[in-house]
């Protein structure tokens, strides 16, 4: 099958902004880490929050920041929202996380099969790589492929309930909505996150 045919076989995909807004609705004590690029903008577009840690770089690091955070804060749900390209750069992290299985960590990959930030080049997931299969093989307690908007509420509730280590692949449309840029001052977003949890900044 040619790459073009593989692309055409993908369903149209969910709207990324609406998906993330629905996932973050009524977030209560949820802690959020975002992967660089569009996922960071999507989470910012849903509403800035002291307990969002936005990455603007460190590609491949979002899930592992989520692990360190989830182990440190076992009583709160931790949600990593990232893209397929960012997660592919940290594929080994799924093995490391699967070996620890914190029940309060969920990883949601917004999968459009493309590197959106760099000119929409196809990623591995558009070329046949199955991230759900990887997460299952790494021992995640649950996985979900999300293709319809009515699945998002169930996903949101699972994460809020700390229902075991989870991984979801959300099939989103490969479009490039207007940028909504949160602070890119790393010291500020780190310090406000800690302050919001009641920790001193140093």
């Amino acid at each position, binding site marked *: 099958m040619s790459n073009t045919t593989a692309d055409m076989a993908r369903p149209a995909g969910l709207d990324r902004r609406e998906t993330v807004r629905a996932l973050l609705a009524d977030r209560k004590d949820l*802690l959020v*880490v975002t992967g660089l690029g569009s996922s960071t903008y999507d989470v910012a577009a849903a509403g800035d929050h002291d307990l969002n*840690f936005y990455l*603007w*770089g*460190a*590609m*491949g*690091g*979002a*899930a*592992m*920041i*989520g*692990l*360190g*955070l*989830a*182990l*440190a*804060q076992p009583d709160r749900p931790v949600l990593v929202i990232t893209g397929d390209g960012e997660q592919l750069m*940290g594929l*080994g*992290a799924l*093995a*490391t996380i699967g*070996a*620890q299985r914190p029940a309060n960590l969920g990883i949601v990959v917004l999968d459009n099969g493309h590197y959106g930030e760099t000119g929409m080049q196809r990623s591995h997931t558009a070329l046949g790589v199955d991230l759900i299969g990887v997460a299952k093989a790494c021992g995640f307690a649950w996985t979900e492929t999300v293709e319809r908007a009515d699945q998002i509420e169930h996903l949101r509730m699972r994460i809020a309930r700390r229902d075991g280590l989870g991984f979801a692949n959300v099939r989103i449309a490969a479009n490039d909505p207007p940028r909504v840029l949160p602070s890119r001052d*790393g*010291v500020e*977003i*780190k310090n406000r*996150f*800690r302050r919001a*949890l*009641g*920790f001193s900044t*140093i």
Partner: protein
Amino acid sequence: MSAGTPAPEWRDQVFETLQHNRIEQVVYVPDAGHSRLIARAHAEPGMRAYPLSTEEEGVAAVCGAWLGGQRSVLLMQSSGVGNCVNMLSLMSNCRFPLVTLVTMRGEWAEFNPWQVPMGRGTPGAFELMGVQVRRVDDAAVAADEVQAAIDDAYGADQAIAVLFSQRLLGRKKWER
């Protein structure tokens, strides 16, 4: 200490330094030189020790732990330092504290030439990304160097790498 009690091994002193400083996550890519520290960390209920598939994962985990209010330490050998370079931009950009303890290869009585390039490049790779490098050649000061690194990281918001020299660690036995 009573007469006849052997002096505590420096590796145990390093472990106890981590304990006294409330280090709660110990993340590592294993090395023979760290094996005692890793075993003791796993046996300590107040610590969560876990292996990484590659060293840069540990850089990110340390940041997550700090966001969540925990101190941590990253253990690796010199061959893994180059893997961390881009991830260390987290420390430069966000000023996350970092204590990493690195066992050196490729610098003294080395048998494996493949260890040499990254061993030589280790201080430079850290310095490239703004991590301060200290070197320990003497077992008598190892625990104090680790204490100072923790003070500088968690007191003065710095990123510190402590390199345990290959001479300190001793020759690796190749023939079995």
